């Protein structure tokens, strides 16, 4: 036993010494390496302009110089990244210096996935459109490797061309199916293309729908939902609303809610969604209709103020309150009722829509809205949502309004007392 303990103590002691030596040595080597790297970066920063103007012979000798010394290779690369330009001459210089070739060869080799991911990242940073096929192939060969798939997708996002987007569209269903990328990550990558490639995104979404690639379709629709709308995208989303899938519907509705108010479209399908069994679809449908339905039409759906989901009640109340004075009668009708959820939803919406200060201005016997505004104000005060001292500059109202407001609120307080 004693011998075993002596052996263990010896092993542990050697390990401690080893670790301490490694720690110090590592730090010393790193310090040396980074100080040289910094010096080289300064050198290449100064030479960059000249390098970009160099002829083939000069580039060739520079290539030999950096290929012989990995630190020089890294230093120049970092300078190229920090001064990156889409100028074809710049990209050509990068290629002639051998960076693309080196990283392409790493991706084609049998090295580890992390090394390949690093190479893919570098190709992405150099925006090399010519490597897209290779990157696509690389993912296809290692479809289950999360790190590599993530790095390649981000590289394709950085390349940001039609070809890069097409590669993502081809790979997306498979990588989602193998759980090698999260929906959010795929969405983020695709969103870098969104503004300029909407047609391609719509086409891909339609394709996924036909192929019944639901997850890919959802990711694509999520990206489309945040793009600026076109007549084509509006029609696409309206058509897709017929889908039975709630997630598909909600993403389509999200796109429609971003359509500017000047662009009108057929609302009948959206109105149908107000009765959808899922609350989040109903919420999204209300958001689409918010500034599109007149108060008369909106009043037909007052039942939404009694919805089981508070989000629906709140959104519908906001929609109603957004009609401001036109909706005063409806608001009063609800406040006089006995549905506390509906009443609170209206009260909250008055705050959220910034209608409270306007409402106060009607608290004067001269106003045509006086009676309605009075009922609402008394209710808001009852539930503790009126705090004139802190929230409203009451002195900005006419004297009669100020007096009436104070009378109303004091009346309430004396009743309470």
């Amino acid at each position, binding site marked *: 036993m004693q011998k075993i303990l002596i052996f263990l103590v010896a092993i542990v002691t050697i390990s401690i010494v080893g670790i*301490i030596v490694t720690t110090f040595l*590592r730090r010393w080597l790193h310090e040396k390496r980074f100080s040289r790297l910094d010096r080289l970066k300064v050198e290449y920063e100064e030479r960059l302009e000249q390098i970009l103007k160099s002829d083939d012979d000069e580039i060739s000798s520079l290539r030999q110089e950096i290929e012989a010394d990995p630190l020089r290779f890294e230093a120049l690369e970092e300078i190229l990244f920090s001064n990156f330009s889409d100028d074809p001459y710049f990209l050509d210089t990068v290629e002639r210096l051998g960076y693309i070739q080196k990283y392409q060869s790493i991706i084609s080799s049998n090295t580890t996935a992390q090394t390949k991911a690093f190479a893919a990242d570098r190709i992405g940073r150099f925006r090399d459109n010519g490597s897209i096929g290779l990157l696509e192939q690389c993912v296809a060969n290692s479809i289950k490797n999360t790190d590599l798939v993530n790095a390649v997708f*981000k590289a394709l996002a950085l390349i940001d061309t039609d070809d890069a987007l097409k590669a993502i569209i081809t790979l997306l269903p498979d990588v989602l199916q193998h759980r090698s990328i999260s929906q959010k*990550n795929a969405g983020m990558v695709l*969103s870098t293309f969104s503004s300029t490639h909407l047609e391609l995104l719509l086409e891909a979404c339609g394709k996924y729908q036909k192929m019944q690639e639901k997850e890919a379709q959802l990711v694509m629709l999520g990206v489309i939902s945040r793009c600026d709308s076109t007549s084509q995208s509006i029609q696409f989303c309206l058509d897709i609303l017929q889908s039975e899938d709630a997630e598909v519907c909600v993403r389509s509705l999200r796109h429609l809610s971003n359509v500017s108010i000047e662009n009108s479209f057929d609302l009948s399908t959206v109105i149908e969604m107000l009765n959808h069994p899922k609350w989040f679809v109903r919420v999204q449908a209300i958001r689409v209709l918010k500034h599109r339905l007149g108060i008369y039409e909106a009043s037909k759906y007052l039942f939404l103020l009694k919805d089981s989901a508070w989000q629906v009640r709140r959104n519908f109340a906001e929609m109603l309150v957004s009609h401001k004075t036109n909706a005063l009668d409806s608001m009063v009708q609800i406040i006089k009722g006995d549905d506390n959820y509906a009443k609170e939803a209206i009260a909250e919406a008055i705050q959220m829509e910034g209608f409270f200060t306007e409402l106060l201005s009607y608290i004067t016997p001269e106003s045509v809205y006086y009676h309605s505004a009075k009922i609402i104000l008394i209710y808001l005060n009852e*539930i503790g949502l009126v705090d004139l001292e802190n929230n409203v500059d009451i002195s900005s109202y006419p004297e009669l309004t100020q007096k009436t407001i104070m009378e109303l609120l004091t009346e309430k307080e004396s009743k309470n007392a």
Partner: protein
Amino acid sequence: MHNFLLLCVLFFNAGVGIYYGLLNGVYSILLSIALISVIRQTKKSKYIEDQLWLHSNEIPPVSIIIPAYNEENVILRTVETALNQEYSAFEVIVVNDGSTDSTLQKLIDTYQLQKTNLLYRDILKTQEVHSFYYSKDIPNFLVLDKEQGGKADALNAGINSSHYPYFCSVDSDSILDPKALLKMMIHVIENPIPIIACGGDIRVLNGMNHPEINTNLPELPDKMLPMFQIVEYLRSFLFGRIGWNAMNGSMILSGAFSLFLKDAVIRSGGYSRDQVSEDLEIVFKLQKLYTHENKPYKISYALDAICWTEVPESLHELGHQRRRWQAGLFQACWKHKSMIFNPRYKTVGLFVIPYFVLLEAPGAFIELLGFIVMPLAYWLGLLSVEYFTLFILFAIFYGVFLSSATILLEEMTIKRYPSWRHLIRLLSYGVLEHFGYRQLNAWWRIQAMYKFLFTSYKWEYVHKLGKSEIKSLKK
């Protein structure tokens, strides 16, 4: 009697041998796994592209919830660093949990807060919320003033008032790195398996001031007690948590900085007010909820999401904190005892909780017993001085080995202590902690065990001195 004592000592010796063998075996496994993970993480950091996420619409908005009770010395710096996060959409909610000092007034004065009235929906039941304060200039900042109900209650109130699908709990004495939230969220959303909770890496703030954190030039504290805790935190986070996380067994997420999926926390019933360590117990509840629902999920740890927190500088405060942690661990394990050795909970049920209960918890007790049994063994003529010395040497050297290995891991990852002087001091304290500090810890753990078994233990706030007072950032 003599024979009985003899038998007891022999059994104890055998037990201690097995116990230390198992414990050190687990530590060695965790260390090896952590080393592999750290090497992978270091390589990965060379090609992670954060900037794509920074302005992406796909990054979910987060509510940062800061519960505060009598934190007038530290609250402003915490709020400032929270508001200065490099993140596209977030809100900061401070919950003033019935402070009797000027915590609320300082916030009102500094941020020119105005009282407002909002409807408060107590989806999670809490003590009464008196009022809300908002700033006209900083629309994503809200302060709740409520009746005192403890940290769990304050966090629940923050959840009730939050607007976003994820929330992040931050202690009122903690400072977030500017990219902490972004790093943590990238970790969460890039994982194809839904992450419902994620802990950050907690570092010791004492001895530094705020601007230094931003420029990566931290300083080490002069006092011994915080120095010991730095080594301890490094060990706990860099090999304990990384190791368990790699085995899908993350159970301890620090209350100082953790991110949660709000819906999951609400469905699990929120933070428990009857628990001493509410931040530990919530993880047990989440594990249970998702296992019962049979949904894919992960509870994780983000190595590069860094939060700096102030550690106690006096023995009294430190003892108080350690007793609370230990009692919280016992309480949570006892409350969720059905998870122990339950294969349904996989790594957590079969390894992590049994490790806490069978290896971590009795450690202090065995150490204390050692002080009684060793003289007894000597008196009975059973103790070989050479054997005893070798055993003690091994125990100390193994501890030093773990501390040194952790410092190497720190070198390989964040490397937040850049000077040579830092390195030498850290290594020295990795040795010194075995002479007094560890024994003190063992004593506090025994006290916690006693309190847990024989007295009631309530949640208490630890008073922060704000010694690492910082300069104000320009807004």
